[in-house]
């Protein structure tokens, strides 16, 4: 009798409860991305501003002559603004193929023939992008706050700017959710990850160019709602208690962001299904 039969056998082991599939997807997705050298390079770049800011905080805390470098509330707003560029690149690198590649390989019908709903599939894919985007926005911003406390040797700054904790969380969440849902929706609309990347970049640059053109023509910045990134900037200013940079109601800026996220989720729920119906 063989010690181990490599033929087909009945499985009598335990199975996890239904509804855990998205975790499996997220784990596999994260592992497949972090093993790529290009991505590791991109992440190192994305953390470079954190290192620069940390040095700045250290110098300001250590040398009195450099106290003008000491962080203020708006330092964190600026930092997250700078990280917007890395949000853009990470979103394209990680997100463009997330659903498009599955559509190209007809994998959706495989996923959805398993005990998994389309919402779970979307959640699994969203979580991959969400985790990476959080790691270049929320995580370094919070670490910067901790670094400040560490180098200053007191919690005075945090205590005096307590609003920074929810502000960083909220703004980073808006940044991450907007980028991840929009990219995932675009990814669900094509079988080519390159095309998705071009569409995302096009959407980003075209809307910004349109807004800037209208601002140039009319002399007003009330058209900021046309650009998702300008709407997000406006929202960020309000969240960080700064003077809004555009002549746009913060409510309208928030509404633009919410509509984009909701619209993307709606597209995702319509596009992610086990069978392609052409009527």
């Amino acid at each position: 009798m063989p010690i181990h039969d490599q033929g087909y056998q009945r499985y009598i082991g335990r199975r996890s409860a239904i509804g855990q599939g998205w975790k499996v997807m997220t784990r596999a997705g994260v592992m497949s991305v972090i093993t790529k050298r290009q991505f590791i390079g991109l992440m190192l770049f994305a953390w470079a501003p954190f290192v620069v800011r940390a040095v700045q905080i250290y110098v300001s805390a250590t040398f009195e002559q450099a106290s003008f470098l000491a962080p203020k509330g708006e330092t964190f707003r600026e930092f997250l603004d700078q990280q917007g560029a890395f949000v853009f690149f990470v979103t394209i690198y990680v997100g463009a193929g997330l659903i498009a590649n599955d559509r190209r390989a007809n994998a959706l019908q495989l996923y959805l023939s398993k005990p998994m709903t389309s919402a779970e599939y979307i959640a699994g894919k969203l979580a991959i992008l969400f985790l990476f985007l959080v790691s270049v926005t929320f995580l370094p911003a919070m670490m910067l706050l901790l670094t400040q406390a560490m180098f200053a040797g007191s919690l005075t700054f945090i205590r005096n700017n307590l609003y920074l904790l929810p502000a960083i969380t909220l703004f980073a969440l808006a940044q991450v959710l907007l980028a991840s849902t929009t990219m995932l929706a675009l990814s669900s609309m094509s079988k080519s990850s390159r095309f998705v990347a071009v569409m995302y970049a096009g959407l980003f640059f075209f809307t910004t160019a349109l807004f800037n053109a209208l601002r140039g023509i009319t002399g007003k910045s009330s058209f900021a709602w046309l650009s998702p990134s300008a709407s997000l900037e406006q929202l960020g200013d309000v969240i960080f208690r700064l003077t809004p940079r555009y002549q746009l109601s913060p409510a309208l800026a928030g509404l633009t962001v919410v509509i984009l996220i909701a619209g993307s989720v709606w597209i995702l729920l319509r596009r992610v299904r086990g069978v392609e119906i052409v009527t």
Partner: protein
Amino acid sequence: MPDILPATHVQEPPPPAERFSGPVVLADHLTVRYGKNRALNDVSAVFPSGAVGLLGPNGAGKSTLLKSLLGFLVPEKGSMKVLGMDVATSPLEIRERIGYMPESDSHIPGMNAVSFVAYCGQLCGLPTADAMQRAHEVLYYVGLGEARYRNIETYSTGMKQRIKLAQAIVHDPDLLFLDEPTNGMDPKGRDEMLELIHDLAHHKNVNLILSSHLLPDVEFTCDHVVVMDKGTIATYGPIAALKGSTGRVYELRIKGDQARFIDVLKAAGYEVHDSDEDVMRVFVPGATDDSTKVLFALAAREKLQVRHLRPSIPTLEDVFARAVGEV
């Protein structure tokens, strides 16, 4: 000779768990539309346990039925039960217990075979270590043991068919849906795939529904058949009973105008269809021993010479041809 390993290290085969033994699928007045096209029209059928062939020409609604049973398509009306559970209310519980091998080329990009199959096992709820172990096992079982570390995108069509079967059985399903499993395979690969399916159904006791337009595939692997045509059920039942039902089949070859004689036979109430070369197959309903005499008499009346007449074993092709009216 001493044992290589202590007896405690020898893995005894696990006791076989009970398979579902009732009707695996019940469809009740099922209607499914793609826009204005009615793909399934008031379909009612019972799929018993065991191996059931879902047979029909392209566009008959076979794949639509499977996709409806998976919950991919919402029927306009009617209801479905799979393994005793309602598709509308328990789709996830059903999918946990079934395996699906789709018709089209499908894989998860960027993975090698063993990672892919293990990943599919995990998606079905298997723990990571168990999923990996079963992935190796089923890949050997389907004949991809040596190629299991290759990226699936480098696989041939036949290998891709096998990997689709492997991902469908990795979690040990109670019911398998196989949609055209021999598509694009060479004759040797096709025979091996059919052997695998036969083995799963008859030695591993896996219930399966095999959708195919290839009669020999269904005849070789299945015990029951459901014949579909134009979105409806044309006939269903045990293959043996359907083949040997209400009549006899004769192989007939004549010298003369074959087309005219086919018309004569049809006018006389016989079902006829051409087979290879110039031999026709004549189905005589409720045939008696006199039926050969009648065929000779008809030929004589038409001044045609019977060159070959012999009783034939009814095949699934005859059942299919009668069911879909190709006679």
